[in-house]
């Protein structure tokens, strides 16, 4: 079997990787996959660019685009995506800000929002919300806090006014009364391509067969995931089995029941067949260019190799 390194984060959005790995979908394709765990998305894209890891899956960030521009990596498939009728990113307000009138996305002018770093998906979503409400970004204070944990701390203690975050984290905050939900990102950009699958440029170019096999196996994992957690079409035993697989890697210390509950209520869709929402990707790329975070010369052809999967 061919040895392949796959970068993963201990997040539910990486469930397809865990499922494909545990259920032997990779082995079925003749791949001997080793999972490399990362603490954050940024090092994963760098590691793929450096050739330490063959495939990875993260949001489209400025860093990812820069590395693609340097010819170091390529986006080869889509993963997590907004999708109407399915849980999606939620716009949160801190309790204090909510009490102070931040009750609707249209009232975000003059407020401070958390993000991990400039050019992260949080930054992009915030910009989309502002655009949709015709509020210039200059009127919103963006506070880069590096880590999701730090943003959670800042939001619950009222030091920032709001945050736009995936439901796996947002739901918990709202449920425990640490924050108020004031809107769905879904309503603003129903096709947002949250995360993508990427590989090193060399891998995409020279190891086409391997890459295709890898994507097929991962798509099988994604299919199982959607059936169990997004469409709820799988039977109870299947759901329990998948809960078990994912829980082995994510939030190990959460009680099983709570974990299952979280999976059932907060899972976002992963594109069938890892299809790419090219519209959203182009939109994101254009925004990064406008903001001067990436070189203005980069085109979506440099970023994406769309020959592996379907485009939506």
């Amino acid at each position, binding site marked *: 079997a061919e040895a392949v390194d796959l970068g993963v984060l201990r997040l539910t959005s990486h469930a397809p990787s865990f499922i494909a790995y545990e259920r032997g979908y990779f082995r079925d394709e003749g791949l001997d996959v080793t999972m*490399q*765990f*990362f*603490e*954050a998305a*940024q*090092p*994963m894209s*760098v*590691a793929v*660019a*450096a050739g*330490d*890891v063959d495939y990875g899956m993260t949001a489209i960030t400025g*860093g990812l685009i820069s590395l693609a521009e340097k010819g170091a990596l390529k986006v080869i498939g889509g993963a997590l995506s907004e999708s109407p009728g399915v849980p999606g990113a939620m716009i949160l307000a801190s309790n204090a800000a909510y009490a102070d009138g931040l009750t609707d996305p249209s009232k975000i002018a003059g407020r401070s929002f958390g993000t991990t770093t400039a050019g992260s998906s949080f930054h992009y979503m915030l910009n989309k919300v502002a655009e949709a409400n015709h509020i210039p970004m200059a009127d919103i204070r963006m506070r880069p806090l590096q*880590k*999701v*944990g730090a943003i*959670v*701390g800042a939001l619950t*203690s009222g030091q920032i006014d709001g945050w736009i975050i995936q439901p796996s984290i947002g739901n918990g905050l709202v449920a425990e009364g640490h924050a108020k939900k004031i809107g769905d990102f879904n309503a603003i950009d129903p096709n947002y391509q949250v995360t993508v699958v990427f590989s090193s440029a060399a891998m995409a170019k020279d190891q086409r067969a391997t890459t295709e096999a890898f994507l097929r196996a991962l798509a099988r994992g994604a299919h199982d995931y959607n059936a169990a957690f997004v469409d709820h079409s799988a039977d109870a035993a299947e759901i329990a089995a998948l809960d078990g697989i994912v829980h082995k890697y994510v939030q190990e210390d959460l009680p099983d029941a709570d974990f299952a509950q979280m999976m059932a209520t907060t899972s976002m869709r992963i594109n069938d067949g890892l299809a790419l929402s090219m519209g959203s990707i182009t939109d994101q790329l254009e925004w990064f260019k406008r903001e001067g975070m990436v070189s203005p010369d980069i085109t979506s052809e440099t970023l994406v190799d769309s020959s592996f999967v379907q485009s939506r």
Partner: protein
Amino acid sequence: MPDPSAPRPGPAQPGRPVTFRGGGFDPRPVRFAGLASFAVIIALIELGTRSDVISSITLPRPSAVLATLADMARSGLLWRHLAPSLERLAVGGAMGAVLGIAAGLMIGLFSLARSVMVPLVSALFPIPKIALLPLFVIWFGIGETSKYALIAFGTFTPTVVATFGAVDNVDRSLIRMGQSFGLPWLSILRKIVLPGALPGILSGLRVSSAIAIILLVAAEMLGAEYGIGAYILEAGSLYNLERLFAGVAILSAVGLVVGAAIGWLERRLLGWRE
């Protein structure tokens, strides 16, 4: 003017004792006061957290931290995290120390090395290592190499500075003595310069080892599954204060142990000091 050289008869009137005005300016640590103050501080925090004077998101209960540590020890998790961290500290620290001592000796001995390397080292010194994390991944990958490299890089610069300072401080009169007896260059280096620089080098290693421990956390940001630094980072991102403090306490303890080891080395090797 009479010369009063002969002792006069002992005066009969009683004298006033000379007033004492010396002493002081010699603070000495009271024994066990350090331990006692630790105990008091920990007890106060325990009371504060139990009585909710200190909110649970400000500080964890010391007893809970202790329980976490005990749990870790019992479940073997402690060793699973500690072993890779110690290995990283040992390998990275040793690399940094060896290269640093070598570079420091070159600077201390040769004009060319001094001219070229001193400005480089002083430019490298204030560079924050965490800023370079993305580069380290590219340069050294995400495996152990990049962790070793980060720790080695962090310990390199202070070791260089300490070593060449130590060589500069070797008593020149001892070197001239060696020359005056016709000792070959290598003998002077081996028998005079190196032992003379040893105290300075060892005290430099004290600083470098503290820096290595501090950098462990940064190093384990680079995709480490196990390691005290990784444990602390995970605790931080989960905002689990018990684990965070347990991890910090372990690092503190590692620091104390390494410091004690260097102290032991100093007593063994530098017994000749006054």
